């Protein structure tokens, strides 16, 4: 009973962690960008979705759709206003681009968070659940919304995998993550591919934000913690590795759930961090990362 409860509970939360981290790791793998405004983009999507759903009667589905759209817009703004100017700047040496992108996205993330605080207050909001009601699995009561979220997360991850492995643009994205120069030599414009990746990223981050808001609730003040959580998972799984991120999401999700159930809710974040430290020392490239 307790075991089943842990199993079910951990599954949904891990799926959500996974969805949040997949976009983050894809972005790094293909574009080489560690976007520290990640949490900000998730939250702006969540808050925008909640706002139109609650104040303009868009309903849960309309709200979710608009939230995802806002996520895409925010992703483009991040790319055009922060990333591209840094990548094109002649004054920034190539070896230092990384720290500039980190600092730039960090600042942009702070601006998003503070701006959202101003507009929406820092009170957490919850999207209306897409489904209400609970079902019983064995003796465990499970909200239908939780099941829907897990299903949605995995569907989107599955769609992404289909896109990458079965479509032409997907192959280009995969190829760009392996060898961008070769792709140029084959006549593909990298800038177009990057634009597609930023779009996918916006959809993933936006959807993760909206689902998070409907499952656990979201507020602007969560932005930093959400970035940190995606970051932790991606490092654990291996920078740039999508399957690694999914595995890591489940490790973190279950480590947290097990701790919360079996030890104490207060200690929830600790084991994941300890696992992370051990992995970084023994295998700095992460579980499935390549050097």
């Amino acid at each position, binding site marked *: 009973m307790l075991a089943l409860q842990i199993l079910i509970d951990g599954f949904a939360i891990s799926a959500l962690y996974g969805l949040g981290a997949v976009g983050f790791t894809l972005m790094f793998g293909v574009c080489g960008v*560690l976007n520290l405004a990640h949490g900000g983009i998730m939250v702006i999507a969540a808050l925008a979705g909640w706002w139109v759903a609650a104040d303009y009667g868009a309903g849960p589905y309309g709200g979710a759709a608009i939230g995802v759209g806002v996520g895409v817009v925010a992703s483009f703004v991040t790319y055009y206003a*922060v990333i591209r*100017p*840094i990548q094109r*700047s002649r*004054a*920034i040496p190539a070896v230092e681009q*990384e*720290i*500039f992108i*980190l*600092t*730039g996205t*960090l*600042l*942009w993330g*702070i*601006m998003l968070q*503070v*701006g959202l*605080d*101003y507009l929406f207050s820092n009170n957490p909001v919850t999207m209306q659940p897409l489904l209400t009601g609970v079902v019983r699995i064995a003796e465990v009561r499970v909200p239908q919304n939780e099941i829907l979220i897990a299903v949605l997360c995995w569907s989107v991850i599955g769609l992404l995998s289909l896109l990458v492995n079965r479509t032409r643009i997907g192959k280009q994205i995969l190829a760009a993550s392996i060898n961008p120069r070769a792709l140029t030599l084959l006549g593909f414009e990298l800038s177009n591919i990057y634009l597609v990746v930023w779009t996918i990223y916006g959809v993933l981050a936006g959807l993760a934000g909206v689902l998070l808001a409907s499952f656990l609730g979201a507020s602007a003040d969560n932005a*930093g913690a959400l970035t*940190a959580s995606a*970051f*932790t998972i991606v*490092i654990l799984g291996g*920078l740039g590795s999508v399957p690694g991120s999914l595995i890591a999401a489940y490790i973190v999700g279950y480590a947290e759930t097990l701790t919360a159930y079996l030890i104490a809710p*207060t*200690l929830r*974040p*600790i084991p994941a*961090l*300890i696992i*992370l*430290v051990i992995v*970084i*020392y023994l295998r*700095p*490239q992460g579980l499935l990362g390549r050097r």
Partner: protein
Amino acid sequence: MPGMLRSPLPLVLLVLVLAGGAAPLWLDAYYLGIFTVAYYFGVFAMSWDLLFGFAGEVNFGPTFLIGLGAYGAGLLNNGGWPMPLCIVGGAVISVIGGVALAVPALRLRGPYFGLVTLVAVLLLLDFIVIFAAQTGGEIGMMVPDVLSISAVVNYWYAFGFLVIAGVILFGLSRSALGLILQATGQDRVEAQALGFNVTKHKVAAFAVSALFSGLAGAMLTFYQGTASVDQMVDLSIAVQIIIAVMFGGRRTILGGVLGSIFLVLFDELLRPIGQLNTFVVSGVALLVILFWPDGVLGYVLRPREGR
């Protein structure tokens, strides 16, 4: 030293030190308080720049070192030690912790060093919260002693410490050790081929950075009467330090002080616009980084060739 004569730096420094020294003559207690905090942040920023700008290591965890110093000193003070000993003790704890972190972490290349330092902060945060009975958790830990309750005296402590730390850190950066550090940061293989033990020098840089971070953290604790997570350990503080250095000019050591004063002072001056002050300050810093990537001091001191 023809290089020094050509540079406007000494003049600028002299004016700034004189202005800073004379500040209590015409600033009221409130602004002295702001500068006091800004000066401690300036030391944090200089210590960080020594690691980043010179040894080439991005340390996302300056607040790990600051936190060790602050909480170390606070715990000792609560244990009955006199304040000056506590400050020294906090700094020693910070150095020990910093070296214990750096020695294994420096084996890692690329972004992984930075990640370990980041995780170190997260762990420290969690431990402070878990051992709330001793550390005060998220509220912060009260300490029995304070440096002084006079704003002017506190200002002098901070200013004096800033000047001493600035002279030492800037001197180090311009010394033989600074040159070697630059070499280890720019080209590890070349530095080794020239006979330098890269790890030894980087650990040394980490220890110096830890020493000043820890000292500043401990002194800030005794200035405020509390060691607090959200002012000394939280990641947002690390962010502020990094932004201060990037804004003021990385690799200049002193630029971090300018950046810190900018961040603290303008955040404060913009307080009348309410909660949006942070938005504006972050926006300005972002613009500086995008369009003026060498930072304020980096621009002023940029080497001008051929004249």
